[in-house]
């Protein structure tokens, strides 16, 4: 079986805000429930 997620997340906006979502996985990685798929930072 397969799960597909589609979601909105913050991206960089003309450089003035530093919030940007980045995946923290690679294709082929094994992942488990509760582990981070990606993070964003608001500074």
């Amino acid at each position: 079986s397969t799960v597909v997620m589609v979601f909105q997340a913050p991206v960089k906006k003309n450089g003035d805000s530093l919030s940007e979502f980045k995946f923290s996985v690679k294709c082929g990685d094994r992942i488990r429930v509760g582990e981070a798929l990606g993070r964003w930072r608001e500074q």
Partner: protein
Amino acid sequence: TSFIIKKLQGQAATQARASFNGGSGSSQGDSFLVPGATVATLLMLGVLHARRMYDEKKVEEAQEKGIECEFQPDLKATFLRLLPLRSISRCWGYLTSVEIPVRLRPHIYRAWARAFHSNLEEAALPLEEYASLREFFVRSLKEGCRPVDPDPQCLVSPVDGTILRFGEFKGPGAMIEQVKGFSYSVSSLLGASSFLPMVAEGHMEEDVDEPENISTNKSKKSWWRISMASPKVWDPVSSRPMRGLFYCVIYLKPGDYHRIHSPVDWNILVRRHFSGNLFPVNERATRTIRNLYVENERVVLEGPWREGFMAIAAIGATNIGSIELFIEPEFRTNQPRKRLLHSKTPEKRVYDPEGVGMKLKKGDEVAAFNMG
């Protein structure tokens, strides 16, 4: 196969000697035919298995070299379309629901774990407690086996599995690559009535009110807008960052833990059920079956989270044709179809209270895949 051939040749030699010494040639000859048919069948199965292993080895070597396998439909994929896969899946479900005698349970589940690399240490209950393979398959885990990442600015995996694809949709037309050389559209995966915001945007309310492919009746827009009216969304100051649209495809192997958890704190407003086909979704199938994820039976959950739109599509397969929702216990998939030509339009449910839906915390159990 070679051992069996030697054995049978020995047997045939003794029979030949016996017949030479006056045994009845005809019955001896017939008995030789039976082993011959067996050997031929074994040989054919052996050859097919060897060829399949060779194909898989080739794919693995290509992937190790970083060569992406291209989409190449083949005869087997066409043949699969002719099979009653949903009925086969339901038969598999009946089979795996058969109650297993208590003393056999540990042995059968250990054999399953060895074959599919499951981790039995994590099972919440002792193996004797699972009455059938189907019950064992949808087992929950011991407390603390899956700690949720505490970072408030992270999105966690809803399932155990292997990351197949992920990325950001840029520009018009949100397409996800099924495999190199073949892509499918997200709106056909989630459904035409999805609230999928089609482009990255500065403000949620701009897009939420006017999603491209949604029937623009006021009531629908109003409650979606209300449900999105979290302070974050209505923040008039445009200091909020823009939002991109991302996707991630995760494949679950038969031995993986098959419950689905919530990836963030969100509200599930709507559930859509597409009762499609039940093709296998293994690596080979993704390379040879067109529109695999869009044709297979699937359940889509949709709703808002603090950073915008969220949707999860749980897609079934031949061996795992059932998707159970803990938030809607009476819901069933992979049911016999009343009509031959099944409608492509999904069966939909809006969760109460309308516009607010089901509230879930990050890590909460949402659904589970099951066999049959």
